[in-house]
């Protein structure tokens, strides 16, 4: 699924938090929205999925203008918070969100086993989520996002609080589903993760400072250090 973001402007009260944002995300790519906290990454993500309105501009996904309910069955959204029900087991959480996507019966069982394997929670699926650690909750949250095998993934800081080994596993899985044609839009402020992506846009104070392939962005830095991306255009 490809995404076109055209001239998006968003205000909170009188503050302009997104200014003339335009970008294209090609199908089957991992696109990274990079920026410090408060730069507008989450707001842009929520506009793209149709949760909130933009004062100006439009978002088009696969030729359909957002918001569009039919698109939602093909989108997997992972919010910044864990967004889980603590009083349910991991399995019941998965079952609930799968049910909302009409994924039931053996399809659900197969999908659930697969995503639990990816996030390393197969042996913990019958535990109540309130007994999970922070990292386990984050992993379960990702599993829920993947349960209906979406064609577009919108991930808001997906690997915060996840240990390096598991983070590697998750990125490997994301790359695997990218090969199968899934488009992935991920927000992050972790510089290392940019290297896992095909394309990155750097957001600062509601403006896109840079938007290019990761390769090109790195070559624009003086010594190829990814940390420098954060400071791109700062003196301009």
């Amino acid at each position: 699924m490809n995404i076109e973001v055209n001239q998006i402007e968003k205000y909170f009260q009188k503050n302009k938090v997104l200014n003339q944002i335009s970008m294209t995300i090609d199908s089957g790519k991992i696109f990274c929205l990079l920026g410090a906290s408060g730069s507008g990454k989450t707001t842009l993500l929520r506009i793209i999925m149709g949760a909130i309105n933009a004062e100006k501009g439009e978002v088009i996904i696969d030729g359909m203008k957002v918001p569009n309910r039919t698109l939602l069955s093909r989108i997997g959204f992972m919010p910044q918070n864990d967004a889980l029900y603590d009083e349910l087991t991991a399995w019941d959480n998965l079952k609930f969100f799968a049910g909302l996507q009409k994924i039931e019966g053996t399809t659900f069982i197969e999908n659930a086993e697969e995503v639990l394997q990816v996030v390393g929670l197969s042996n913990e699926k019958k535990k109540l989520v309130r007994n999970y650690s922070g990292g386990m909750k984050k992993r379960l949250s990702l599993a829920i996002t993947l349960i209906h095998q979406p064609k577009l993934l919108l991930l808001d800081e997906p690997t915060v609080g996840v240990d390096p080994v598991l983070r590697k596993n998750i990125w490997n899985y994301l790359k695997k589903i990218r090969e199968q044609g899934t488009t992935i839009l991920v927000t992050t402020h972790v510089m290392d993760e940019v290297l896992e992506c095909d394309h990155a846009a750097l957001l600062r104070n509601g403006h896109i400072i840079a938007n290019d392939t990761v390769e090109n962005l790195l070559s624009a830095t003086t010594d190829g250090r990814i940390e420098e991306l954060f400071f791109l255009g700062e003196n301009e």
Partner: protein
Amino acid sequence: MLCILKRILIQIKNDKRSLGLLLIAPLLVLTLLYFILGDSDYTPHIAVYSMDKAYVEQLEEKASITKLTKLPKENSYLEENKVDAIAWKDSKGIHITLERKNTKSAKALKVIQNTNEKLAPMKISPVIHYLYETNDENQLDSLSYVFLGVLSFFFVFLLSGMSFVRERFSQTLERMLMTPISRFEVIGGYTLGYGIISAVQSVLIILFTVYVLGIHVEGSVFLCILVMILMSFLAVSMGALFSIFSNNELQMVQFIPIVIIPQIFYSGLIPIDTIPLGLGNLKYIIPIYYTSTALDKVMIEGKGLMDITPFLTGLVIFIIVLFGINVLSLKKYRRL
């Protein structure tokens, strides 16, 4: 919608604290009220003057009796001698003097009235004098309809409101709305889920009140349950509505004085027709008014379905309107 309903039921089953708040807490509070306001095994102290011997003997079976040789003139006699009532007789009939309306005087009055009915059922009723007039009735029997409605409303409102705030705060609501489910289905599932649990609470409260606490219901117990179930669905919707204006659990609690206390004012605890400046007319926009009035008519007056239909209709209209507002309000979280 069924997904949400099932999820809420499993969630509540695994959340013993909420289950206790919803099912056990109202019963404990009602039991406490029963002992505070209801009949106890208190033996009233009655002073008698110029009463028939047979009458006094009958009274002695249920009360401790002091026989007076002259009728006390001072108002302080009752208080100073810890006497609950004076029963005396003259040419006009039996008179009963009580200090004020309270549980003790009510008990004394009941003993005297029972004796009257037993010994002289067809004779003229006794003349009752209160030294100090108050509006208290202090009988759980006569106020049970108020407490049933208010207590149930309070606990359901709190639980459903808090749950909805938590859904928003933890972003589970946002995640839910990022699926093809409609806003109607979300509110429908939510109302049904918590409504069913609250309905169980209503049935439990009524059965407990009637069969364990022994509160008298003049009319049909089934009708009381029906009123309470409708009210619990209403309380769920009210909770969901006010949760929209709360950003966290604390803010939800801050709504209690604004939402719950007016409900108490219009629940029948205070006579609505005595409220000045036409403020009594606000009762039409206070949901508990419909519940309390319907319960009053069934429990105290023994009225049937036809008599309470207008109040049930009022409750249904409230539920439908609140449901619509809640569906619309979800637009804040998803535009479609």
